[in-house]
């Protein structure tokens, strides 16, 4: 199997960044002054120091967004379909941008094929209240992709076996961070 390089330009994060990620990954405290509380807990100067760090992490793309993180399943989105598509390489970026812009697609990625068993190179995650809803959405995707689709499939998740936030640990580290 051809090895893939996952990361090309890894942003440089210092110890304080890592500590801030650990402090915020389980969520901000629901107090009047969450950033101030975090600053206090980490021994940083004040809420401004936390804000500046968070802003930088946003700017370099380490943080995608800050917000209320809902539980899709609990909110009634019981069907989670990972639609996977075999799209010719020369058009996959154009197609991906188009699919990634759809409201009902929560994630859209290009990933490597594993031929011959796995020909799919475009992944679009679709959440719906039922499988019927997901299938309707997937039909919409199919219509947009048109003749570029050589093959496709929907992989429904039947069980969530583990769902946690990020964990940080280097191999060889004796102490883990959670």
């Amino acid at each position, binding site marked *: 199997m051809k090895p893939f390089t996952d990361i090309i330009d890894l942003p440089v994060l210092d110890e304080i960044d890592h500590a801030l990620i650990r402090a915020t990954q389980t969520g901000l405290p629901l107090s009047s002054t969450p950033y101030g509380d975090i600053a206090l807990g980490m021994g940083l100067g004040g809420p401004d120091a936390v804000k500046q760090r968070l802003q930088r992490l946003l700017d370099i793309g380490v943080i995608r967004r800050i917000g209320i993180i809902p539980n899709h399943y609990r909110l009634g989105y019981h069907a989670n379909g990972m639609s996977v598509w075999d799209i010719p390489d020369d058009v996959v970026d154009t197609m991906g941008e188009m699919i990634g812009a759809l409201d009902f697609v929560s994630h859209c990625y290009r990933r490597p094929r594993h031929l011959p068993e796995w020909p799919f190179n475009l992944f679009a995650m679709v959440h719906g209240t039922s499988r019927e809803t997901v299938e309707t959405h997937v039909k919409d995707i199919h219509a947009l992709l048109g003749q570029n689709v050589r093959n496709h499939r929907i992989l429904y998740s039947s069980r969530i076996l583990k769902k946690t936030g990020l964990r940080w640990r280097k191999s060889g580290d004796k102490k883990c961070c*959670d």
Partner: protein
Amino acid sequence: MSNNRNPKPTPDLAPDLSALQIRLIEEFQRDFPTTPRPFATIAEKIGSDEESVITAISDMKTKGYVDRVGATYATGRAGASTLAAMEIPQDQLEKIANLVSHFTEINHNYEREDKLNLWFVVTAADQASLNTTIHSIEAKTGFAVHRMPMIEHYRLDLGFALQWN
């Protein structure tokens, strides 16, 4: 362009959510204020008060509608990570899934209905640690781990500015 990529709450299925709570979920999945008192800032924007906003969010957390208020991290930007998939005979799935979940580097471990039936994300501090972890999983389970790292992501709403005062 839609401002809200994430699923909206469905009142039919979450009937105990208040109007305030639905609005909070709809409007504050991103661009959460970084003001010294963010919940007061939100309250000001939507015509509520700080205490009501905090109470509404706490209540949703208690009921499980909200996992947390916080940052979502792009795993691929803050270390090394990859989506991975394994093909496990159904009668061994439970056992193997438990072995895999036991690794602290694993999150989002899902059973999916396919020949490749176990899907998870491996995250490590760097590429070497990631390789070590994947090899350990293969050694411990006896099954191959297929790596499906992100080559490209397609999203229009990645960039946004924090609201500074």
